[in-house]
């Protein structure tokens, strides 16, 4: 038997951001015994930092349809998104937004009392004809309002939260069934097995593998690391979104809503350069295209500032009223982090790592699926993944702005419903394997015993620098091959880390050391997948293979930790009910 104490639940959710709390709401309201673990108090999860809006074809501003939203999402994904999942998400979008409103979300309003919607990148009317207002917004604090609303509704439903608990490893039995996790209570240092009939990862992103990132410190890819160590492959990990507008030098996000409300990008010559790259949608083209255009401008010497290394985001022409009403936090951020008041001056911005399109492969019910024999989508029993850590795939090679919050709501809800449908309270727990928890105990024992070794902060810092240098906006074979070698060296160093702090009480050094293991898995998955994909699609831009290659690469990547093996599976080009959108050239 295991050496660790055990607690039992019907269901376990790891992560209390938007996806985790949308799922837990379904479970708690259905009366299941569910535990939600989170490294931070739920309202501190990184969903809180989302700014611009939630995409849904409510049609409050002008005619809209889910089919147009679906087309925009597929085109945004550069045809790597699965069309069945995308149809499901876009059809569900209005319903999940209305639900949030009924929960009390303080959406901005139109004069007729309906929810205010703003334009956003890549969203269009009538299949690309012109920009459309589809992003349902709460000023520029949509994520904050959504996360707090979901937490509040969970308080009402009496969801049980385990706050400041870090999940360490998955427990799987000999048949591959997932039986729960090992977890560390940060305040006491106690390690436990949390046993469950269904385990759901909602652990968010992993932007902390890059040096310049909009992501929070907590975004260390814990779900990805746990999945990889348990033999689950990671999908499409080469696709990382650079958000066009991070504050230069600070990395803090400046929402696309600035451009949605009418802001524009300027180069050192004062030129609105997006008119050249995307004549139709201009500054509201999809993020991969705007980021690459900015990088191109900077490369060609038209960057601004003493080092010509950023471009300017101008919004003073919107006037103080619009800025204070619709973009108040942006003004605050610009003043605090860039020393400029956007009512008068433009904000210096650079493309900054923002979002991971890849993740743990799932179906629309959030069930984790892996290839087995001829079937590429066999369910891993007992395991679910939702939100940024999952790859359904609705974002394909490039996510549209506002579709991330939508993804959390739609798939958090559907995965929650699927778990409810299993009628878990009528089922018994399967026996834990003999070695349950041993992997986590070994990881902790190594850290406790090590008296000297590599510094966690230095290895993590070198990892971020290497990923930034070798896996940036533009990639090529030489950069990526060297990157693979560097990441492997860093993996070896990460196995020799030591921490000075041996206390059991709220040992944040230990937490950071454990997080490093997850960062390493995420970085390996990313660089191996990127090195192998010899084409440019969405966020993967290879200067040595500048064209999209549908004949050879219209397929999903799967990376396995064991031997860094790569496999591929087809993209689902068949929607649920409508005609397919076949791949075509992508212009905005």
């Amino acid at each position, binding site marked *: 038997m295991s050496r660790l104490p055990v607690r039992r639940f019907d269901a376990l959710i790891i992560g209390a951001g938007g996806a985790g709390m949308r799922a837990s709401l379904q479970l708690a309201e259905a009366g299941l015994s569910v535990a939600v673990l989170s490294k931070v108090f739920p309202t501190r999860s990184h969903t809180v*930092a989302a700014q611009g809006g939630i995409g849904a074809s409510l049609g409050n501003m002008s005619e809209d349809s889910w089919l147009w939203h679906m087309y925009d999402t597929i085109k945004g994904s550069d045809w790597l998104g699965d069309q069945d999942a995308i149809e499901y998400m876009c059809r569900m979008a209005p319903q999940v937004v209305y639900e949030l409103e009924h929960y009390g979300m303080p959406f901005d*309003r139109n004069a007729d009392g309906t929810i205010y919607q703003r334009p956003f990148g890549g969203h269009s009317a009538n299949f690309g004809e012109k920009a459309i207002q589809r992003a349902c917004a709460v000023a520029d604090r949509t994520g904050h309002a959504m996360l707090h609303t979901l937490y*509040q509704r969970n308080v009402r439903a009496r969801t049980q939260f385990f706050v400041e608990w870090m999940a360490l490893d998955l427990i799987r039995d000999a048949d591959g069934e997932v039986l729960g996790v090992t977890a560390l209570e940060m305040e006491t240092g106690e390690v436990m097995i949390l046993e469950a009939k269904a385990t759901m990862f909602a652990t968010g992103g992993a932007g902390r593998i890059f040096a310049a990132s909009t992501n929070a*410190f907590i975004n260390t890819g814990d779900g990805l690391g746990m999945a990889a160590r348990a033999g689950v492959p990671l999908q499409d990990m080469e696709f990382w979104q650079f958000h066009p507008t991070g504050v230069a030098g600070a990395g*803090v996000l400046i929402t696309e809503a600035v451009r949605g409300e009418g802001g524009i990008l300027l180069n050192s010559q004062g030129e609105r350069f997006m008119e050249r790259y995307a004549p139709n949608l201009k500054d509201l083209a999809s993020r991969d295209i705007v980021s690459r255009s900015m990088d191109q401008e900077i490369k060609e010497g038209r960057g601004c500032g003493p080092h010509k290394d950023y471009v300017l985001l101008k919004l003073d022409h919107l006037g103080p009223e619009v800025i204070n009403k619709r973009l108040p936090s942006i003004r605050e951020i610009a003043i605090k982090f860039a020393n400029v008041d956007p009512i008068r001056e433009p904000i210096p911005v650079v493309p900054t790592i923002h979002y991971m399109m890849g993740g743990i492969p799932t179906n629309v019910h959030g069930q984790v699926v892996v290839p087995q024999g001829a079937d590429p989508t066999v369910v891993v029993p007992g395991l679910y993944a939702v939100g940024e850590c999952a790859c359904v795939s609705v974002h394909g090679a490039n996510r549209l702005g506002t579709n991330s919050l939508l993804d959390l709501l739609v798939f958090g809800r559907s995965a929650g419903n699927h778990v409810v449908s299993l009628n878990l309270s009528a089922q018994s727990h399967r026996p834990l394997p003999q070695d349950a928890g041993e992997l986590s105990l070994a990881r902790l024992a190594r850290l406790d015993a090590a008296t000297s070794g590599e510094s966690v902060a230095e290895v993590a810092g070198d990892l971020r620098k290497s990923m930034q240098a070798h896996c940036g906006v533009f990639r090529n074979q030489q950069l990526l091959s060297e990157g693979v070698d560097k990441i492997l060296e860093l993996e070896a160093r990460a196995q020799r880390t030591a921490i000075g702090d041996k*206390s059991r009480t*709220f040992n*944040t050094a230990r937490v950071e050391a454990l997080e490093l293991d997850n960062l390493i898995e995420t970085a390996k998955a990313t660089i191996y997948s990127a090195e192998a994909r010899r084409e440019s699609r969405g966020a993967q831009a290879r200067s040595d293979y500048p064209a999209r290659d549908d004949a050879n690469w219209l397929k999903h990547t799967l990376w396995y930790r064991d031997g860094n093996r790569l496999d591929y599976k087809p993209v689902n080009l068949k929607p649920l009910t409508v005609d397919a959108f076949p791949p075509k050239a992508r212009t905005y």
Partner: protein
Amino acid sequence: MKFRIYRYDPEKDAKPRFQEYDIALDPHDRMLLDALVRLKVVDDSLAFRRSCREGVCGSDAMNINGTNGLACITNLKTLKEPVELRPLPGLPVVRDLIVDMSQFFKQYHSIKPYLVNDEPPPERERLQSPEDRESLDGLYECILCACCSTACPSFWWNPDKFVGPAGLLNAYRFIADSRDRDLNDRLDNLEDPYRLFRCHSIMNCVDVCPKGLNPTRAIGNIKTMIVKRAV
């Protein structure tokens, strides 16, 4: 830059102590959190919470040179040296700059922090006029960092009985919502010598709120509503 930081690890320290640090900062280090992250590289035993590093998650509230604030949006240039850092006052210290926030959240949970409306919802959104929505501005933006409640003497003396500025601000956020149908119960729940009326308008909460919110005004509005209801 010189720092003087409150240290306490219950496993090692019989009582809290202060530790001095002198550290060379990088020109890119802008905020206090940048300095703390740098300090942690030198001394990994220094414990503090942090996450979003842009002032929206509320993790890194602490007492900075005697005033509560968020480390991530406190510019180093504004700080007098040695920068003295303490955990938020009035809450039990778990370790170093990390406090036990249970009491704070218990008070937040006590005000029914969710919309109450049992009417069957429409198929679409409930309608709300822009003016009704505007009355939530300055209320819904709370990040639950606890800077305000832990700067409030009334909360220090009665953390178990006084809801505190953060909880009361959130109570008013729902009272003020045109979609909420629980006004009377909400006021009943607060009509108490301690829960609401321990606020003596000292206004420390307003001074320290990193989001520029005004709990005292919200509390005043609730008091007025209770008084009016009695007439």
